């Protein structure tokens, strides 16, 4: 066990997998010599060489398109998209090709990659260095979507993602890249995909969050507790496939739920979660499920702390839901 932040844990996970399996390769913009603009791939270029840690030309379509070809060949590419906001030039390759490859080829050509990219706001990134596009990928059949909230999960989920047979979108909450620290085992361990973790048990309200907003949910729950409201906090960790059992079990217990995410509210993942809860626990609901999310605007610069669903906006939702 050593104390690491998210960047170090992901870096450690990448190194571990590259040592274990020489088919694992990294490609992207600035991932090589400098080790990425957030230094997540630091040191890997020197350790594994430029055939396995590749600085590419400035084209996300080229990065993902060639990564798919590498995967068809039998490598396990782990491309980095410098910011999730810049993934859209590769959207066609991801949704039309990567997600459908195994299916459309009758299983002949599974195309397995792990696409790593930083998501989320709170770093003064404005429109284009802050977004959380998860629902634009969850909607696409054939993709798994992961978003860790701490160093232990980050490494464990990364190892599981690289070993999983399906393509994985690995979203890294950049706001807590360095702020989130914790004990991380050396070497081998995985955190299974598709399993949420129960951060805290509580009888009154289920709070569903992931990534950087988990800490806001916890802060709000702490405050709510002082007002007599006990929250059960779920960290989804894997967004899709969703850990529906853990969610439904909790909602059946509390009858009340608040979902938190940074992405704009409309057609965000929160709406899907609410709809699924309606389908599977309707008669247990004692209050309308509430979404505390980013607003339906582009991500603002100066006012980003008012845009984000931080603790001060989550708390009233918890109290109102509990007292509904």
């Amino acid at each position, binding site marked *: 066990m050593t104390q690491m932040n998210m960047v170090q844990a992901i870096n450690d996970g990448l190194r571990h997998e590259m040592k274990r399996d020489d088919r694992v*390769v990294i490609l992207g913009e600035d991932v090589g010599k400098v080790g990425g603009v957030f230094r997540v791939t630091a040191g890997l270029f020197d350790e594994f060489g430029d055939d396995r840690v590749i600085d590419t030309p400035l*084209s996300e379509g080229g990065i993902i*398109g060639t990564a798919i*070809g590498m995967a068809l*060949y039998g490598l396990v590419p782990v491309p980095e998209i410098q910011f999730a906001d810049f993934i859209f030039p590769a959207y066609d*390759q991801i949704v039309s090709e990567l997600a459908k490859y*195994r299916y*459309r080829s009758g299983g002949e050509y599974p195309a397995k990659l792990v696409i790593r990219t930083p998501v989320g706001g709170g770093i003064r990134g404005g429109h284009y260095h802050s977004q959380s596009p998860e629902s634009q990928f969850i909607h696409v059949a*054939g993709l798994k979507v992961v978003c860790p909230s701490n160093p232990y999960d980050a490494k464990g989920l990364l190892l599981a993602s690289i070993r999983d047979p399906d393509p994985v979108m690995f979203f890294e909450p950049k706001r807590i890249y360095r702020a989130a620290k914790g004990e991380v085992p050396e070497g081998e361990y995985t955190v299974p995909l598709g399993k949420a973790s129960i951060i805290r048990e509580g009888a009154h309200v289920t709070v569903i969050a992931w990534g950087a907003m988990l800490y806001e949910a916890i802060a709000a729950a702490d405050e709510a507790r002082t007002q007599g409201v006990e929250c059960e906090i779920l960290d989804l960790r894997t967004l899709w496939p969703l850990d529906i059992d853990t969610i439904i079990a909790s909602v059946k217990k509390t009858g009340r739920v608040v979902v938190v995410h940074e992405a704009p509210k409309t057609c965000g993942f929160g709406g899907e979660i609410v709809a699924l809860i309606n389908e599977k626990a309707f008669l247990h609901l004692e209050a309308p499920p509430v979404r505390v999310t980013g607003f339906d605007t582009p991500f603002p610069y100066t006012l980003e702390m008012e845009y984000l669903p931080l603790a001060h906006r989550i708390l009233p939702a918890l109290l109102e839901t509990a007292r509904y």
Partner: protein
Amino acid sequence: MAVQTTPPAAPPASPSPLNTNDPDVIRVLREDGSLDPAFDPGLDPETVVAIYKHLVLVRTLDERLVTLQRQGRIGFHIGSLGEEAAIIGSAAACRPQDWLFPCYREFGAALYRGMTLQAYMNNMFGNSEDPAKGRQMPDHYTCRAAKFGSISSPIGTQITQAVGFAWAAKTRKEDLVALTYFGEGATSSSEFHNGMNFAGVFKAPTVFFCRNNGWAISVPAERQTASESFAVKGIAYGIPGVRCDGNDIFAVYKCTRDAVAHASSGKGPILIEAMTYRLSGHSTSDDPKAYRKEGEVEFWKKRDPIARLHKHVLLNKLWDDDKQRMLDAQIDSQIKDAVAAAEKIAPPSLESMFEDVFAEPPWHLQEQRTALLNGPRAKGH
């Protein structure tokens, strides 16, 4: 006709068109059926005949599939009428270890590389033995056994993927070349740019095979670019480009073989522009009368790739009318059998709709599968 999967042993070396600065189109097969020795690839007679037979098979298939579509027995066909030499000449020039990343018109290449006619026909009927399990439209099959990729509709996407595949092989020190097919319209797509650019930078052993058939549905080639040719686009990526007569099987074979040799020797990718023409509509959904230019079809019919090769095999006494009659009869029954068999094979199972989305269906797909199986059936299909 026996499908040939291994190409002939390399014949005596001849100068490579890749080294010529001749801006003209490389042509080998002359009007009279003889070959220009300058770039004669020196194919042995057996191969020439095998290729000729394959061209006839592909041409006949095209005609039958259009009829089947008109009869409503298959939903769609997108053919290669007039482009057979470009497609099969290039496939024939690849080595067994090379891979093809197709567009949607190259079923002739797939069959030449060893895909069975039955497997292809099963895709045309979207039945349960379709390699794509009835999930995609006709002519969107897959054949890993023939080192032939999975066909998708979005234009250009396979180009970048071919580059990644070839690049990966290079980093693993494996000697293989990825040849990717696309039309001239696809050179306008973003993925042509991405694929060419990455291939140039990383010297990925890729052959970019552009079928310039004059049209992108109703849009003429000159509306795709203001460049002097499609081959010249290689300059933007440090990639040599060569133009050849796409209706000349020998020129196509020669240029492709040299390009494969060039790429496999570590010299980097090559862009080949094969000048050909789409004698049919874009697909069974298209009526070309609406946009074709006066006299265009007549001009190209005179340059029909199969008629030209036919002249050559006759001239060299490799072929005669009896052989032709036998071949036609054989192909006719081959196709009839494949169609009859494909029509008898059941459609894919309902369960199969939920397989291969992921390696294992997660809970939500299991639920959806159960709901479908326990629910009512749709009418009319």
